[in-house]
C-alpha cells in the first residue's frame, strides 16, 4: 500500500457555548465522519436525561465526572479528525473557567488559532482576549470566523464592518496571517462547502482553508538548533565505537558534513552522520527526532546544544520574559525561586523584578504591579543558576520557551516566553 501523505495541523479554538463553538466543532467532526455512532448515542442520551434543548456536543469530551455533573468544561480537550489531505488535532479550550491557563496551554503547540465571533454581537472583549493570547503565543495563522451569519441576513456589510474593526485592533498585535470567513455553523454555511447564501464572499470554506493553509514554511529553517536530549552509547560489539546525540531538531537544518559548535563548551566539529532506526538520513529538519554523530570525540551531554559556529543562540543567565502565571494558590513575586525547564535543561531561577502586569483586555501595562496571580500575564526579569542557550520566543518557539516549577510542590506554575 502507498504511504499516507497527509500532513498534521494543530489548531486551537476558544470561546463559549454561546459563540456556537461546539456547534462548529460538532459539524466539522460529523461532516468528516469523525464522530462515532456510539459516542453520538451516548451524548444524545445524556443530553436528554439532563433536559438539554439540543444535543450538547461538548459532552463528547467533557468526560470527567465533575464536568458532567456541573455541565462545564474544565480542561483543554483534544479532538481528532482527518480528511484525505490532513490530520487535525484540535485543542479545544473552554471559554470561562481558567480561561487564560487553558488557552495558553492549547495555543502553545498550535499552528493556527480559530477565533469565533457572533455576527450579531461583533467584537467583544473576549474576542480581543483570544486574539491577543494567540499572538502572544505566536500562533502563525489566525482565522476569524464570523458566525451566525444567518441571523444577520447573510449581510456583507455586517461582515465587512467586523473585519474592518478587527483589522484595526490586530494592528497592535503581531499576527502573521489573518483570514476572515463568514459562516453559519448551525446551517453549515462556509463550514465544509461554500455557501450559496453569501455569493459576495469570494474566499474558501473553513475546512478548505484548514486543509490548504501553508504551514511548512512556519518552521524556522535558518537557525540550526539541536538541544541534546540523550547520549546514545550502545554497549555491544556491533556498535562498539558508536557515540550519538539524540534529540529533536528545534530549528534550521542539519546535514552530514555541516560544521557545528557544541554549546556551552564551544568545541567545534562536523556532523558525521544523521542516524535513525530506519537508516541514515541526508538531512534533519525541525521536529525530526534523530541521532547526530560528530567527527570528533568531544564531551557532549544532555542540556548542551549543537548549532552552527556562525549562528549561535544567546548564552546567558539574565532573562527578560513574558510569563503567564498558572499556579492556583501561589503568586509570582520578586525574590521567589523556582526550578526552570528550558529545552532539555533544568536549572534554578530567581525572579529579580516584575516589570509590569498586562491587562489582557486593554493591553494596558500596570508598572506598579509587583506580583502575578493565577491567569495573569506580565513581564519579568529572571536570573538563572546556569547559563541558558536561548533565542527570542518570536524567533523560535522551542528555544524561546520555558516552564517555572514550584520546588516545594513540583507543580508547573508558569509558562515563559523569552524576549
Amino acid at each position, binding site marked *: 500500500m502507498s504511504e499516507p501523505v497527509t500532513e498534521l495541523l494543530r489548531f486551537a479554538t476558544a470561546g463559549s457555548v454561546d459563540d456556537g463553538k461546539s456547534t462548529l466543532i460538532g459539524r466539522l467532526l460529523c461532516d468528516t465522519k469523525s464522530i*462515532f455512532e456510539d459516542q453520538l448515542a451516548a451524548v444524545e442520551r445524556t443530553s436528554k436525561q439532563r433536559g438539554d434543548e439540543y444535543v450538547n456536543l461538548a459532552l463528547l469530551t467533557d468526560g470527567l*465526572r465533575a464536568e458532567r455533573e456541573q455541565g462545564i468544561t474544565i480542561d483543554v480537550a*483534544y479532538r*481528532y479528525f482527518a480528511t484525505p489531505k490532513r490530520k487535525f488535532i484540535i485543542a479545544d479550550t473552554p471559554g470561562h473557567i481558567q480561561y487564560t491557563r487553558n488557552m495558553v496551554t492549547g495555543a502553545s503547540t498550535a499552528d493556527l488559532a480559530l477565533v469565533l465571533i457572533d455576527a450579531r454581537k461583533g467584537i467583544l472583549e473576549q474576542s480581543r482576549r483570544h486574539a491577543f493570547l494567540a499572538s502572544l503565543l505566536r500562533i502563525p495563522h489566525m482565522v476569524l470566523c464570523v458566525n451566525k451569519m444567518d441571523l444577520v441576513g447573510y449581510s456583507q456589510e455586517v461582515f465587512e464592518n467586523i473585519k474592518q474593526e478587527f483589522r484595526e485592533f490586530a494592528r497592535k498585535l503581531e499576527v502573521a496571517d489573518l483570514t476572515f470567513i463568514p459562516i453559519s455553523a448551525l446551517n453549515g454555511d462556509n463550514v465544509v462547502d461554500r455557501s450559496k447564501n453569501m455569493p459576495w464572499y469570494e474566499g474558501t470554506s473553513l475546512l478548505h482553508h484548514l486543509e490548504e493553509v501553508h504551514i511548512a514554511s512556519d518552521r524556522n529553517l535558518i537557525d540550526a538548533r539541536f538541544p541534546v536530549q540523550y547520549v546514545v552509547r550502545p554497549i555491544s560489539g556491533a556498535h562498539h565505537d558508536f557515540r550519538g546525540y539524540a534529540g529533536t531538531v528545534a530549528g534550521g537544518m542539519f546535514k552530514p558534513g555541516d560544521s557545528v559548535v557544541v554549546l556551552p563548551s564551544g568545541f567545534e566539529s562536523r556532523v558525521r552522520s544523521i542516524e535513525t*532506526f530506519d537508516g541514515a538520513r541526508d538531512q534533519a529538519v525541525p521536529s*525530526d*527526532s534523530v541521532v547526530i554523530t560528530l567527527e570528533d570525540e568531544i564531551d557532549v551531554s544532555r542540556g548542551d546544544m549543537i548549532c552552527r559556529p556562525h549562528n549561535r543562540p544567546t548564552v546567558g543567565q539574565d532573562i527578560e520574559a513574558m510569563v503567564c502565571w498558572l499556579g492556583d494558590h501561589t503568586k509570582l513575586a520578586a525574590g521567589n525561586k523556582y*526550578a526552570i525547564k528550558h529545552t532539555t535543561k533544568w536549572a534554578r531561577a530567581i525572579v529579580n523584578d516584575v516589570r509590569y502586569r498586562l491587562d489582557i483586555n486593554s493591553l494596558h501595562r500596570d508598572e506598579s504591579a509587583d506580583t502575578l496571580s493565577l491567569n495573569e500575564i506580565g513581564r519579568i526579569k529572571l536570573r538563572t543558576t546556569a547559563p541558558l542557550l536561548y533565542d527570542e520566543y518570536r524567533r523560535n518557539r522551542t528555544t524561546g520557551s520555558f*516552564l517555572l516549577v514550584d520546588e516545594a510542590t513540583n507543580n508547573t506554575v508558569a509558562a515563559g516566553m523569552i524576549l
Partner: protein
Amino acid sequence: MNQASFTHLRALESESVHIIREVAAEFDRPVLLFSGGKDSIVMLRLAEKAFWPAKLPFPLMHVDTGHNFPEVLDYRDRRVAEIGARLVVVSVQDSIDAGRVAEEKGPRASRNRLQTTTLLDGITEHGFDAVFGGARRDEEKARAKERVFSFRDEFGQWDPKNQRPELWSLYNGRHQKGEHIRVFPLSNWTELDIWQYIAQENIEIPSIYFSHQRDVFKRDGMWLSTSPFITQMENEHAVPMTVRYRTVGDMSCTGAVESAAATLDEIISEVAASRITERGATRADDRASETAMEDRKRQGYF
C-alpha cells in the same frame, strides 16, 4: 525538501520518540507496560527507535490477569526475546493468593478491576518512577483530558481536577519518592494512525487481530469467546463465527467483532469505515457507567 518528513505519521512518531527519550533521561527507573496489544506494540517499536542502535534502557512489564489469549502471550514472549529486553511479569493470581484482592464471583466475574492492585504493587515493589502506557486520547473521554506526563500520588491515584499544565514539548516529571508519573507517548494517535503505522512499519501483530473462526456467544450485545475463564449462562449458546479483535485485553471482558478482514489493508479499510469506537464495540469494562474509566483511573488503573 523531503516530502516524507511531512507525513502525519512521521510527525507523530517524532513526538513520541521525543517523549520516550525525555523519560529515559530524567527518571531513575522507567518501565514500559507491554501487553502484546496493538498500542503497546507500537509503543515498543517507538522505544526501539528512540535508543537505536542501543538497546532499551528500561524493562517491560506485563500485568498478567491469567485470562490471556494464548496467541497474545505467545507473541509477547517472542517479541521480548527478539529485541533482548527484560520482561517483568506481575500476576493477578499472585495478588489473589497473597490476599491482596478477592476474586469476583458469578458468571460476570472479571479480573479487570483487580489489575489495578497488581499494577500498583508491581510499581512499588520494583521502585518504578515512570510507567509508559499505550493509552490514546481518542479512545475514551476520560483519557481525552489526561496529560502526556500524568502525575500519580503515593497511592497511585490520578486527580483529574488537579493536573499539571502541559505546554510546548516541555514535560515536567518532577515527583517525590513514592510518587510516580504515567507517561502516554501515544496520546495524540488515533486508532487509524496505529493501524496505518503498523502497516507502514510492517510490524508483526498477534494473529487474533486478523479474521479467524472462533466459537463465540453473545452477552450484552458483545461477542465473547468461549474459554475456561468465563462461565456461560443458560441462554448463552456458543456459535462458530468469523471474527477478529479490535482490542486485546482480558478474555473475560474483551469482545470480538464480526469481520472478514484478513490483512492489514483490509483492517485499515474496516477501521476507516467503522462507525463505532473500538472500546464501544469491544469492552464490557467501560460499560459499567458513564464514568467507568475515570473511576478506575482515579484508583490507579492504566
